[in-house]
């Protein structure tokens, strides 16, 4: 029995909504999802498990239709879906009156339910979110009848407010595979037993690394997973890089360095840069021009101007500069104090009257 396990698609989300690429990303999510659906067909999977948060918000009828159309293109694949915290089932949900394609089973109940597929002797268990949070651990003590069927569990959670389960306890449950969602970083929790599929596309800057789907196979006789691997599918990655500067680094040099880094790692990815080190006090890095060429989420300039405060103090022991340094410099300076020191010294040095 071959299966594909995805989760946290967040259909309908517009990541980085204040950035110019937001719309494009919104489309990427849909494209990659349809890619995953196609993969189910081309890999000849028997099942497609979607472990919650297929939709970013309560799905509208049109969203359901779109998704259902995609499912209808893979009539041979049994699609099993549960709702997560984002697309939890509310009383007014369009889901309640929606008719899915025949190959789709949406497990809507708040309590554990199952669907059984006779042809592949597989019973898929799961329950859906009806509330924002499920703070109690409702997963790791589930009991299912030992009836010779392949048991698969779809679950959604893993943090304190969303079913904080115990991994060890989960391993002793009678499930061949536990398909988890909610945590956006893909991770195989128990070798050949349990995994977070992670978000299909990375959805914000914290979701660096590769994203995609889990593909696995369960032996019909032993009812054990024989292979489980992660297949990257996402269109791009969020990449965070630290760039070190020295007082010799110029703005152009830094821009070229960053451009080089971006080109090495792929111009399509979304980047965050952190500039570290000491810079020439006369230079303020202005990298706005890069933002028009690449997808740059933010450039955090943590570089500090290379003032030699002790030299400056020695030079100005009894005037404003010396006093200013004395007033602000102390062993453990807060960020604001540090910056105030830089601002003040910079202003004083820049506005010096020409000496006679």
């Amino acid at each position: 029995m071959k299966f594909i396990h995805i989760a946290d698609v967040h259909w309908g989300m517009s990541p980085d909504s204040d950035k110019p690429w937001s719309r494009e990303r919104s489309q990427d999510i849909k494209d990659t999802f349809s890619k995953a659906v196609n993969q189910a067909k081309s890999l000849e999977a028997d099942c497609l498990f979607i472990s919650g948060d297929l939709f970013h918000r309560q799905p509208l009828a049109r969203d359901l239709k779109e998704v259902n159309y995609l499912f209808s293109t893979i009539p041979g694949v049994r699609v099993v879906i549960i709702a997560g915290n984002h697309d939890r089932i509310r009383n007014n949900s369009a889901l309640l009156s929606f008719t899915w394609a025949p190959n789709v089973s949406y497990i809507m109940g708040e309590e554990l339910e199952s669907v059984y597929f006779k042809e592949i002797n597989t019973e898929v268990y799961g329950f859906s979110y009806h509330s924002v949070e499920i703070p109690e651990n409702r997963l790791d003590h589930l009991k299912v009848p030992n009836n010779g069927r392949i048991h698969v569990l779809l679950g959604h959670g893993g943090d304190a407010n969303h079913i904080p389960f115990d991994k060890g306890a989960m391993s002793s449950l009678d499930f061949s595979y536990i398909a988890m969602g909610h945590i956006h970083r893909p991770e195989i929790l128990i070798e050949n037993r349990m995994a977070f599929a992670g978000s299909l596309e990375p959805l914000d800057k914290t979701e660096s690394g590769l994203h995609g789907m889990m593909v696995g196979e369960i032996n019909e006789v032993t009812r054990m997973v024989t292979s489980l691997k992660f297949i990257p599918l996402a269109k791009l990655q969020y990449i965070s890089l630290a760039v070190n500067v020295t007082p010799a680094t110029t703005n152009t040099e830094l821009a070229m360095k960053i451009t080089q880094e971006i080109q090495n790692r792929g111009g399509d990815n979304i980047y965050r840069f952190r500039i570290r080190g000491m810079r020439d006090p006369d230079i303020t890095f202005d990298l706005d021009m890069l933002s028009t060429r690449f997808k740059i989420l933010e450039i955090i300039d943590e570089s500090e101007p290379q003032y030699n405060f002790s030299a400056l103090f020695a030079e100005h022991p009894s005037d404003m500069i010396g006093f200013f340094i004395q007033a602000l410099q102390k062993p453990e300076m807060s960020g604001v104090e540090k910056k105030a020191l830089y601002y003040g010294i910079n202003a004083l040095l820049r506005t010096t009257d020409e000496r006679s």
Partner: protein
Amino acid sequence: MKILDIYINGFGKFHGRNLTFHDGINIVYGKNEAGKSTIHTFIRSMLFGIERQRGRASRNDLYSRFEPWENSGTYEGQIRVEHKEHIYRIERTFQKNKKEFKVVDETAGKEIEPTKTFLDDLLCGLSETSYINTISIGQLKSATDEGMVTELKNYIANLNTTGNLALNITKAAACLKSQRKELESQMVPEAARTYTSLLSEIRNIEKEISAPEYENQIQTYQKLRVDMKTDLEERQAEKEELIKKVARGRQVLTSNQFTDHESINSYSQKAQEHYDDYMEAQAACNRKPKKFASVISLILATLLLCGTGVIYYMGESNYFSAYYGVDLILLLSVFVSGALIFYLIGLLLFLRIRHHMKDMEMSGKVLEEILSRHLGDTDISPESIQAFKNRMAEFTRLCSAVSKSEAAINQKAAQIEELNKKLEGCGVTIETQQKSQWELEKKLDHLSGCKTQAEGLKHILAENDRIREEISAVDLALETMTNLSSSIRDSFGLYLNKAASDLISGITGGIYTSMSVDENLNIFLNTKTKLVPLEQVSSGTMDQVYLALRLAAATLIQSGEERMPFIFDDSFVLYDDDRLKTGLKWLAGTYTNQIIIFTCHQREAQMMTANLMPYHLIEI
């Protein structure tokens, strides 16, 4: 500290040049471009070294400006100074790759580690900056009076507020303020408000859509509708069945010319009546005494008629007349009338029987017809009548069955109507539900938009916070600077103004008695009779004030017993002869320090000679 001699080995235009300085006033005379400034800078560089500037500033820094003109490979020199009765030789190589700095105590005959403490002591606590600010004295740069006023005022303000001629607190504060403005312009001030209003809008929409009217019960209602439809169909079928049944019953009744119970009853009653009549008639017909009486009557009448004949024949001879003497005529008439009466009776009886017969016949016919219609048998008998009655009872039952069915039909029809109404209501509810779902979708769409916008705003808010932190850093810098400057003014500025004020009188030869600086850093020179604003004094006086200020600062800043030499670089150009004389005299009289005067005029030397003041002349 005083300078004994210098040896320049590659510095600007000079190579292998020795100059010796003496105690007291040294006048270094040279024409323009002779290299006075080079020597001046050489002294400074020997004392403090040359720090290369970084980057673009390096092109025009001291190092490049005074690189040896001839490429001899040396860029170095020596200076010998006397300090606390020790003679030190300072040797420096400026070249960028082999910078060297060596101090030799010639008195002790050993090299000395040039530590900071040693250098501080040697240089009387002066840093390069304060050296430039104080003892190395030039003239005011500005060419115009107005410019000079501004420059001098700036210097005084700077010294008063920052303790440094060159540090300008006003400009620094303005610079910080413009940075602050720049930062403020990067903020999105309405972001927080928009965010808050977005959040409340989101809350409102969420509250709105959680209202029960938006609950999706379409499926329930659809199921209900399907159920109702099946129910309705069943009932419809039942109703039709009933209608058919009724129709059949009706047909039967109609074919028997019945319409309702009434008709059946009256019909059977009629039949009963006919039967009764028939039976009665039959009974009457069959009544023997009547028949017998009729026959007897007729016989009697006939007998009487015959008797009449006999009597008439016999005439008076008949028995009665004969015997009883009854009148014959009377007798005859009695007989005849008797016969007549009996005839009449007989006839009457006969007619009565005939009438009954007829009655019976008629009733029998009607009955026969009725019976033949309903039983197919014309026999009139109690059995057949009973059969007929049963038949009629059947009809009655049928009739009541029909009317019952009809009632049932009516009931069904009412039920169907009710169901239809309910169905319609259900349809309306589903329609309303669909409509509210549609409304809900619109609201959800809007909600989603709001949420996305809020998420975007969160980044902007974070960015705002970041900028706010920068602004508070700028504010802290500004505040610190302001506080410091007022404390500098309160301490150093006060002493400085006092010291400078004391010097003014000497420098100006008593023309101005003192100088005062008010809170707004306006400067006044005081004569014995009035306060003269700085703007109104001559440029020469301004230079004098400048000198006084620097000398005052130099006195305040230097530490220790020893004093650094004063170095004047073309400082007296603007002085008239009287002023110069007064100034030089005052300098020589007031200060015991070594004084080095760089000049491109000969009048300083001439004036010294003329006034019999000792000095040492160095010509280059």
